[in-house]
């Protein structure tokens, strides 16, 4: 045991002496959490888009103008889009092509005519191919407006038909029968007058959410899950360097068993990992007011399990890669795949469904899930299975490493 601790202490000392590496491991995660938090902090609030869009109304009748008025007067639309009313469709198309405008609505010259003739009338929505989000939202806004118009026309036509073929005619209550043939009054062409379209309304129900996790807290959990594993990469570097410089061979020649040497090295990685976790925990708490939850013991245990996984990863990497350069290639690949699968880059729920079963192999997945549960008020009992899963992955990796690693 003493030998194991000595080896662990030696590895930790070497690591701590390398100020630059230490700074990278401790400061970079905080930097990335900051970037992610400020980049994506206002995601989901529609008004963060503020996209430039245009409307061109070529309609010779009056229906087109109704669309323009409806779109430009709605406050909710105004909050998301800066709408420019323009008259040159060709020019607008070019600007959308270039990405100067995010999207546009072009109302055709024969809109009113087509509606009068009872033909379906298309409105053209132009989208900047470089915009994957705002342009789609604009199309949705236009479609909502178009649905209103269609509903009015459908209702108008249905009424007109019913009234023109009555078994015994008489003006129905609530409808101005004379308007049906007179065409546009203040409704859409071919329709009596604007009907109240409020038979079905949509109401949003309040949902009592479990305690909400802010974007920066989410990424604090996610980046911690990912960066603790990077400690494993540095552990593997240390192992490979000692193998190259033959100090590992010297250790083998001492009475210490390989188990003690592997254990000592793993413990060294864990000590550094614990330090890293402490900095992340305190740093995110002080700098970004991240609330890690009330159950501090559970938070520490989750971190501890992830650090164990990092130690396991270090040994597995040392077994897989011969040189530092090789490890520098595979380690980020492993860690980033674990991270992407675990939801460190985009929330796990957005991953394709066929991939979800693979998440169980990612320690990052279990770690992020645990931290989020704790942030939402969960306790140790809730995350105990997750802690077990991460520890099991760590032990499996450690076992694989100890089995396959070469000491000389």
């Amino acid at each position, binding site marked *: 045991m003493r030998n194991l601790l000595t080896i662990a202490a030696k590895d930790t000392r070497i690591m701590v002496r390398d100020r630059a590496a230490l700074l990278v491991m401790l400061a970079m995660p905080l930097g990335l959490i900051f970037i992610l938090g400020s980049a994506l902090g206002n995601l989901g609030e529609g008004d963060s888009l503020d996209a430039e869009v245009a409307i061109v109304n070529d309609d010779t009748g009056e229906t087109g103008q109704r669309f323009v008025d409806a779109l430009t007067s709605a406050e909710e639309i105004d909050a998301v889009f800066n709408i420019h009313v323009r008259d040159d469709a060709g020019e607008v198309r070019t600007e959308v092509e*270039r990405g100067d405008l995010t999207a546009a609505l072009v109302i055709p010259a024969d809109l009113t005519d087509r509606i009068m003739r009872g033909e379906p009338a298309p*409105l053209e929505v132009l989208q900047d191919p470089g*915009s994957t989000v705002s342009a789609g939202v604009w199309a949705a806004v236009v479609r909502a407006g178009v649905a209103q118009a*269609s509903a009015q026309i459908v209702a108008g*036509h249905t009424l007109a038909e019913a009234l023109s073929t009555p078994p015994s005619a008489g003006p129905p209550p609530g409808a101005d029968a004379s308007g049906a043939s007179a065409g546009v009054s203040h409704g859409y062409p071919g329709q009596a007058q604007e009907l109240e*379209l409020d038979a079905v*309304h*949509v109401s949003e129900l309040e949902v009592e959410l479990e305690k909400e996790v802010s974007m920066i807290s989410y990424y604090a959990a996610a980046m911690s899950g990912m960066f603790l594993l990077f400690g494993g990469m540095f552990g593997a570097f240390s192992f490979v360097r000692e193998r190259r410089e033959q100090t590992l061979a010297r250790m083998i020649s001492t009475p210490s068993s390989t188990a003690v040497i592997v254990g000592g090295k793993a413990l060294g990685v864990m000590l550094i990992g614990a330090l890293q976790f402490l900095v992340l925990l305190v740093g995110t708490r002080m700098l970004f007011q991240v609330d890690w939850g009330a159950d501090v013991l559970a938070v520490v245990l989750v971190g501890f399990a992830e650090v164990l996984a990092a130690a396991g990863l270090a040994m597995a990497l040392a077994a897989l890669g011969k040189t530092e350069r090789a490890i520098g290639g595979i380690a*980020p690949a492993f860690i980033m795949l674990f991270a992407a699968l675990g939801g460190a880059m985009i929330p796990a729920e957005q991953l394709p469904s066929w991939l979800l079963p693979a998440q169980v192999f990612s320690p990052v997945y279990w770690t992020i899930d645990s931290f989020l549960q704790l942030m939402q008020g969960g306790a140790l009992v809730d995350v105990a299975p997750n802690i077990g899963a991460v520890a099991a992955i760590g032990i499996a990796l450690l076992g694989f490493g100890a089995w396959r690693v070469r000491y000389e």
Partner: protein
Amino acid sequence: MMRKILSLAWLNAVQLVRNPAEVVGVIVLPLALTMLFGSAFAAGQASDIRVLFVDEDDTTYSAQVGELIDAEESLRIEDATRVDAETEIAAGDAGVAVLVPRGFADALERGSATIEVMRNPNSQNGFAIVSVVQGIATRMSGNAAAARVVAATPALKADFDDVYQTADAKWSPRPPVYAEASQVVASEVRGDSVIAEGTTQSSIGFTVWFILFMTFGSAGGILEEREQGTLRRLMVAPVSRTTILTGKVVGTVLAATVQALILVLVGAFGFGVPWGNDPLAVVMVLGAYILAGTGLAVMVSALVRTRDQMSGLSPLVSTALAMVGGCMWPLEIVSPFMQTAAKLTPTGWAVMGLTDVVFRNQGVEAAMVPTLVLLGFAGVMLGIGVKMLKFE
């Protein structure tokens, strides 16, 4: 001199190929991530968005709500009970639930029906789904408005349900007014679904991101040689410092070019990303970016002491630059501050340039500014790197 530079560049390639793990890391990983993120962002193409549907009324009208949601291209309904929906939404397992309460059909006839929507405010798709439901409510309201008027006229002897169905039939195959959305790309118009936007965004982003891994890995080789003492041996040979560095830079640029070529070809043929719109413009932006990435890698090599530090730093620096530069998500969704920050990074300019060239097919003219800015980055960083790099 030229021969020496080429042999040094060749040495770099040999060192690289000897490390299959590194090659896998810089080529297979970005392709795997392109696929992962591509399908995540391409909503509706790879995976439909799940909408919980609670039908408490169990009538043709309530069923129509579900059918119309399900008919929407990117949405898929899943039947649930009110309690399930509440639990799933509260826990964040589902983003949106649509509920049709008991008595919906009767209320529709009276003109006062309600469709309830429950959504988790953190769900990114919530906004779009609510607008779809709003559209359905409008359609049903229109039908009901006509049906109520007719049914209320005894002389017409018409049934609410019949008139409702007559009106509803007018919505298909096309409603009276409809919107046709299309993406306009210079000299062509692509339909709504022809282009795999999600994959294009990821293919561009990950190519830009992982080129940095390659340049870091390759340029870091000089540190390895310094540690192993082979660099010192080179110095005693009749080779100038400039030649050695030029050889290293040429080697790095070549390696990154081969990597970029593979990523672009697989993106184009495997994922249908329109990389081939204007090859010259793509070559300009990517070429300048590879030079900038090489400059950055040489500069970082000069700032760190050991290969270990370089290996540890490179994934972090490249990931940070990738995040700020818009490699992982479209820049249009980030805050204005971060949009400005993107313009201070080579990754940001590469993504902006490639978005113009690949997404928008804007050609060489649009590639000019990003290319020049990237060459500027390359010059400055390479200059600093070369000046500061210690050989012993």
